[in-house]
């Protein structure tokens, strides 16, 4: 068991908006990522997965929120670093890819410069060297005719190309950790597959650890070693991928699985989506936030807040975990 590259401990992010009462976007999340490993953060929008990633990158807006807990990266607590030190690490040790490739690229700066600037920033090299590096990267992420592309602008690229360009930037300095926030959501299905494949090769070959943030268990199934399921800002279940898919213990996980259309499901057999929406959440403090939407909810779910307890075969980093009074019994596993 190698040491974790990234280990998040009891991460809390609270948004304090004038007027409204504080909102716990992330409420004590902990998980580990080992070198070269791919870990998924899964959940509906608003479950706090993106906030978690931004917190790790130190990209949360300066005002209007408070972050606590620990984000140990190679033994240093990123939360403890100054803005300046953090800038040093971003892009060099940690890279990130965002959801919408078009809006994530600067429309008035050429692709070349946008890739090269990372290289220039983190390895003190001349502009020309950086440019050459950028070309190499574009080539590597499978952009045809990279030399021409260098001079082009985002609006001249297709969606897939843009995402590849973004990946090129994120990986330009061979970071040890890459966070991908819904990298494929904004893309056509066909492109999605290509991008995921690309990501997979790149991380495996450069031995980069990947945190894959998604609401799409399909993506998880394709890539992740470990899966962390978040709900209402808390971790509700963690497990190794196949265990999780084989035997989802948390009704929510089960629900997520249930809402994936499957080719092998009998015709006419209805999907059973999770009723209600995130807005029905209860406060974790004195209950199970998921209770209102939970098929197996019982009075005690509303009475007290379930703890995260060890569970099942566990993930590669020791055991798995579960936060539920009434886990799903295999018989009920969604099919």
């Amino acid at each position, binding site marked *: 068991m190698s040491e974790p590259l990234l280990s998040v401990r009891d991460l809390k992010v609270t948004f304090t908006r004038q007027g409204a009462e504080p909102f716990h976007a992330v409420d004590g999340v902990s998980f580990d990522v080992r070198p070269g490993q791919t870990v998924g953060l899964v959940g509906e929008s608003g479950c706090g997965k993106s906030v978690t990633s931004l917190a790790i990158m130190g990209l949360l807006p300066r005002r209007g929120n408070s972050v606590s807990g620990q984000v140990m990266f190679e033994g240093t607590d990123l939360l403890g670093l100054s803005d300046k030190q953090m800038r040093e690490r971003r892009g060099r040790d940690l890279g990130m890819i965002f959801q919408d490739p078009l*809006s994530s690229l600067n429309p008035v700066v050429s692709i070349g410069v946008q890739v090269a*600037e990372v290289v220039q920033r983190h390895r003190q090299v001349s502009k020309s060297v950086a440019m050459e590096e950028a070309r190499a990267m574009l080539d590597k992420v499978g952009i045809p005719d990279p030399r021409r592309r260098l001079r082009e602008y985002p609006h001249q690229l297709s969606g897939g190309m843009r995402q590849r360009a973004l990946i090129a*930037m994120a990986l330009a300095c061979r970071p040890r950790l890459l966070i991908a926030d819904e990298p494929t959501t904004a893309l056509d299905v066909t492109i999605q597959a290509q991008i995921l494949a690309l990501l997979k090769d790149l991380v495996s070959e450069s031995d980069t650890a990947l945190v894959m943030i998604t609401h799409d268990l399909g993506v998880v199934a394709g890539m992740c070693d470990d899966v962390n399921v978040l709900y209402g800002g808390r971790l509700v279940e963690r497990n190794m991928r196949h265990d999780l898919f084989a035997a989802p213990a948390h009704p929510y996980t089960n629900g997520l699985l249930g809402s994936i259309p499957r080719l092998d499901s009998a015709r006419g057999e209805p999907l059973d989506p999770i009723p209600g929406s995130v807005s029905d959440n209860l406060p974790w403090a004195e209950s199970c936030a998921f209770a209102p939407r939970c098929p197996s909810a019982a009075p005690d779910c509303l009475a007290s807040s379930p703890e995260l307890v060890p569970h099942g075969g566990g993930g590669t980093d020791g055991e798995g975990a579960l936060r539920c009074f009434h886990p799903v019994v295999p018989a009920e596993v969604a099919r």
Partner: protein
Amino acid sequence: MLRFVVRRLLQMAGVMIVLSFLIFAWLRSLPGGPVSAILGERATPATRAALEKAFGLDRPIWEQYLLFLDRIAHGNFGASIRVQAGTDALEIFLDRLPGTIELTIFALTIAISIGIPLGYLAARRRATILDNVSIIGSLVGVAVPVFFLAFLLKYVFAVQLGWLPVSGRQTPTIDATHITNFFILDGLITGEYDAAWDAFLHLILPGLALASIPFAIIFRITRASVLEVLDEDYVRTAEAKGLTSRVIRGRHVLRNAMLPVTTVIGLQVGSLLAGAVLTERVFSFRGVGDALAVASTERDYAVLQMLIIAAAAVYVIVNLLVDIAYAIIDPRVRTR
């Protein structure tokens, strides 16, 4: 690109022609007119008739207009009667233009070099004291009538403190040689640095007065568009790349935020011209604005129509240039 420019120029020409006739027509519908401007108390029907005949004012308006166009075709825009009697209107415009250009450039430089940085800061520190104060400050700048601000500046810094010259473009006793009539430039060319410096001193107060409104507007547009850009995903991407805040500010925030600002700067030229009429009047600054003010109160037709049409032309041209500049900054326009 070229086609775009040509089309704009043609449009402009059209606008100019329509404009010239409108102005020509209404100027002649004014009461009084050049004849009585010349004659004053001495006007008698006899002398008036004689003058009107000499000027062809007794002919029907459209005929006068055709004559006018014909004259223009021969590069004769009509002689001034008051602003600079006997001088051709175009010549007057060209004589006065350098002064106004010096003044407006100076004013714009002030407006830009304070407005943009301040706008950026205000946006970064949104809803802080700095933000609110500078917003109110900029709005006060707009609320103060330009000519009154001009008077205050003159009264305090020139009359009371005597730090700066009261009026004019240059101290006559310096007796500078003028080549281009851009006095500062002239001073530098001829090596008469004291003259250049003196001319510069004469620019400061009117420049400040004139800058107040463009400053306010540039400031607020900058602030607004920086706020917009700061929310953009690509700024977050840049942050995620760990770029230094300098690079992020310059390359990613400001370069984008400047797009609307450039447009607005171009549009300011219009208000600058109008403002120049007032400031130049207060400071007796020999520029187009001063000529325009005199021409309009003294009914100096030739000059008046020349200057208004010219103002419109300048305005249109500048905005054309801005559009071109815009196309150059914004690849989305250029490469389409």
